[in-house]
């Protein structure tokens, strides 16, 4: 906590303002449709932040995170449908299952060249989708194959994780995002963070300094998958209907990876920035061109990705930060001088 407060006061001020704005946003925005878009932006920022633990810091490229999100969503949903277990509890169970799955995949592959890991995660992501699409039920648990599950509706109930208004969803996912961002921050400023970064950049040198690289990557993987699983439950409760194509499979996995890379992987705010930029693109193109040109938003995603990687291979966080510095920080107070940019770099 002390480190957090030691940041440059201007950065803290801006963060506080931003946070304040996020908290009062629902007072200004009243349309549920618009709220839904904001909720989804935050949810995607959350998903991408969980991805960031592995993809951003451990130096490998996971391309199957939808598997863990899906495991979370399906676990809590099936437990609620069959046994009436509160999704809050199911959320934890789902997270743990997702973490276990992540460890099982990571154990053999995190020791290998990153390409193997990327391929293995794709295969697992697709494997889980195909599995779920093929299974109608397991014992008393209804999976329903490709048609998916509609969650039994209850009235406004915290324990059933169902609300009439969008407001509670908004605050829940906002809190989840803040927690995951804080976790990211503390991890980066801890031994694990240093070891992950070292192992990601030069695994051989890291091992020579006493770091068992694969072990730290595995820890990151477990944390990441657990948190992704929690996000899956949130998604299920928000939509109240899940089916394999929506939360399993390549499209979601890739969208997360794209958001991370465009925003800036391995930075705290990269995923947030990425989601902020890309989600509206996908919502707007879907609304305006959805029926005419079904794949347009993905073409735009791909093009943005290629262009950003060409000119800002580290993502847009850096240029945006410099831009903000020019626009705001220098106006807020000149006394900081060049120090402002310095701490800005340290902050991520």
């Amino acid at each position: 906590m002390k480190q957090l407060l030691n940041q440059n006061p201007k950065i803290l001020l801006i963060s506080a303002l931003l946070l304040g704005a996020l908290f009062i946003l629902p007072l200004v925005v009243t349309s549920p449709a618009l709220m839904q878009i904001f909720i989804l932006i935050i949810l995607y920022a959350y998903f991408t932040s969980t991805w960031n633990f592995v993809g951003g810091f451990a130096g490998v490229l996971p391309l199957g995170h939808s598997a863990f999100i899906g495991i979370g969503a399906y676990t809590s949903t099936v437990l609620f449908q069959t046994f009436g277990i509160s999704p809050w509890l199911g959320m934890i169970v789902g997270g743990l299952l997702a973490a276990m799955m992540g460890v099982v995949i990571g154990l053999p592959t995190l020791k290998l060249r990153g390409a193997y890991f990327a391929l293995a995660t794709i295969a697992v992501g697709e494997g889980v989708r195909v599995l779920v699409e093929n299974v109608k039920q397991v014992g008393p648990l209804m999976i329903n194959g490709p048609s998916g599950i509609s969650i039994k509706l209850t009235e406004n109930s915290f324990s059933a994780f169902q609300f009439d208004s969008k407001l509670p969803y908004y605050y829940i996912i906002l809190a989840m995002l803040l927690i995951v961002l804080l976790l990211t921050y503390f991890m980066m400023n801890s031994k694990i963070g240093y070891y992950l970064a070292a192992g990601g950049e030069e695994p051989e040198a890291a091992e020579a300094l006493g770091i068992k690289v694969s072990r730290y990557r595995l820890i990151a993987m477990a944390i990441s998958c657990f948190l992704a699983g929690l996000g899956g439950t949130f998604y299920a409760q928000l939509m109240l209907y899940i089916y394999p194509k929506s939360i399993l499979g390549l499209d979601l996995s890739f969208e997360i990876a794209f958001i991370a890379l465009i925003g800036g992987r391995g930075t705290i705010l990269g995923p947030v920035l990425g989601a902020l930029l890309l989600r509206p693109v996908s919502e707007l193109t879907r609304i305006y061109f959805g029926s005419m040109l079904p794949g347009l938003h993905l073409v735009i995603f791909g093009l943005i990705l290629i262009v950003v990687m060409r000119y800002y291979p580290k993502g847009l966080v850096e240029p945006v930060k410099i831009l903000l510095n020019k626009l705001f920080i220098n106006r807020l107070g000149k006394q900081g001088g060049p120090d402002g940019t310095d701490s800005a770099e340290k902050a991520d």
Partner: protein
Amino acid sequence: MLGIIEALINGILMGSIYGLTAVGLTLIFGVMKVINFAHGSILMVGMFAAYWFVILTGWNPYFAIPVVVPLLFWFGYYMQSFIIKPIFEAEKDVREPITVIIVTTGIWYVLDNLALMIFGAEFRVAKTSVTGQVFEFYEMYFLLPKVIGAGITMVCGIYLYWFLKHSRMGKAIRATSLDREAASLMGIKQAKIYNVAFGLGSACCGMAACVLIPFYYVYPTVGVPFDIKAFIIVVLGGLGSIPGAILGGIIVGIIENVGAQFMAATWTELLLYGVFLFVLLVKPSGLFGQKHDY
């Protein structure tokens, strides 16, 4: 029993076509250490090219080969030199070229969805002179285009292997895969090698596309299942190994076809993922991979 043998042979036939696409993927990986995630999309481009060739000319589908294969070679060549090269250069010293990998997935998305926007989602079949013809052999029946296709891809695989072993360019490509710096000290121009490797990898897709057209559907995301299979194959055979890719392709073809005798097609897909994970757990370097590649 005959059914199983029939499935086995069908598996080998289809598997050799998978193998050829995987050879392209593994060739590019060997040289650049980059998995080209857009590989399946390049196959899709090749299939649409071959499809329109057949539809517009009405000629025998195999006449498309001399048009589509060079077309795809140049497609891959310029894709590498215009889009991938600048990003690759910036990341040359990095151990894991993650940015390049993600850019190839970007290309995948752009190509597939452009195709979706242009051609629509429908499945198309090219009715050619060999389509639907059956080849009989000891009371077993095989699709004639599949047999011809497998024959052509086998020849291509062997030729490519020979090319890499004995030709000047092939030797330069192999030298670059072994040691980039040493090869460039020997005067091998890396950028050109990368372009050629990408071109050759894409040409493999072009060839596979031409032989697939007489008996396979074309649709915008047709590359995805082939892509995923090619990934499984290269890991099975060992990343960077050409014989491994061909053998891996045949294994995948056999699993798929023989498996289909006992279960629904969707379950054989799952079986493939199972085999893939098993190989990763037991022998992650694959059948022909180098042990210390980490």
